[in-house]
């Protein structure tokens, strides 16, 4: 191989597709995650660690539920809600699920309009997402209140059956609700920056001193979709099982 050949064979990083690209990215210097803004890579790594935390909670739930000798309270009846007539099973949870999915949709649109540099639409969609998130938390507060005040569910016991129900329920949904609440704050902050035009003027962040860009909307979106993703699992294992 002549020196001129080796010069022409130099490729831009992150060009090779498929498995050989995977090997190339990981064996290269400096950056394994090509073409990904650092904030996004870090958000993914945070979400990966969060996956393990939520998994530990859900596995704890499985262990507790499988090992109890008492009857597990029927979610279908515990979470039923009546609007004057017969109680409709899980209706509030179903509405909460649909709200979270709707908010995921508005979030994905916000990311899309962000990359089109459509400032007003992005900010508006972020605010709608935040409002939907806040209404989700509001419904959760209602659900908890009903459970604690009307149905007498406590972390150490409840009138319906296995005493572990309350502990594991409050821990898992509480931790998820906390994530949603933090997400709402995060959304409002990002919406404010979008509205002000920080990402158009590449204004540096007060904490990281990195140039602002619409990539941050996508990073925010990853967090929000993750919250929706966790709810998919909680909905299936906690409410439908």
């Amino acid at each position, binding site marked *: 191989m002549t020196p001129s050949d080796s010069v022409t064979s130099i490729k831009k990083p*992150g060009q090779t597709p498929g498995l050989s*690209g995977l090997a190339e*990215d990981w064996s290269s210097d400096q950056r394994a995650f090509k073409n*990904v803004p650092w904030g996004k890579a870090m958000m993914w790594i945070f979400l990966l660690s969060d996956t393990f935390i939520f998994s530990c909670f859900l596995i704890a739930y499985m262990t507790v539920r499988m*090992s109890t000798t008492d009857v597990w309270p029927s979610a279908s009846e515990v979470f039923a809600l009546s609007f004057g007539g017969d109680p409709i099973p899980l209706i509030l949870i179903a509405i909460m699920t649909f709200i979270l999915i709707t908010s995921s949709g508005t979030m994905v649109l916000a990311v899309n309009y962000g990359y089109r540099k459509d400032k007003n639409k992005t900010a508006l969609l972020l605010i709608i997402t935040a409002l939907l998130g806040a209404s989700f938390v509001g419904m959760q507060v209602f659900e908890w209140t009903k459970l604690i005040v009307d149905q007498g569910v406590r972390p150490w016991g409840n009138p319906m059956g296995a005493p572990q129900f309350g502990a594991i329920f409050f821990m898992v949904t509480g931790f998820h609700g906390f994530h949603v609440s933090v997400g709402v704050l995060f959304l409002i902050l990002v919406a404010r920056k979008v509205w002000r035009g920080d990402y158009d003027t590449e204004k540096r962040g007060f904490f990281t001193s990195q140039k602002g860009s*619409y990539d941050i909307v*996508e990073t925010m979106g990853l967090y929000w*979709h993750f919250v929706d993703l966790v709810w998919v699992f909680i*909905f*299936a294992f906690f409410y439908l099982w």
Partner: protein
Amino acid sequence: MAQEEGQQHPLGIYFKVWGLLFVLSFFSYMVDYYHVQGYTRWTLILIFMFLKAGYIIAVFMHIKWERLALSYAILGPPLVLLVFIGIMSYESDYTYETRGIYFVTGS
């Protein structure tokens, strides 16, 4: 598409997946509403759950378009959780039987 920084895709695919998520959630709610029980219930709930999770990760979180170096780094590690689930279900069976002997029959 994935060669540039940032993920820019046509809106159509988002609307399709959005609609699909609504339909799948509605189906899983119907499983409960019509009191489907036993293995049918487990199977249906798990199918709808994994479909929803898959669509959210693949399309909404853009994993479908990311380079494999990132996708595998994210999707690979959670697989060890399967071992954890296996260990804990074995453990809880054991606990359940022990409780059956000492709590229920008494000794």
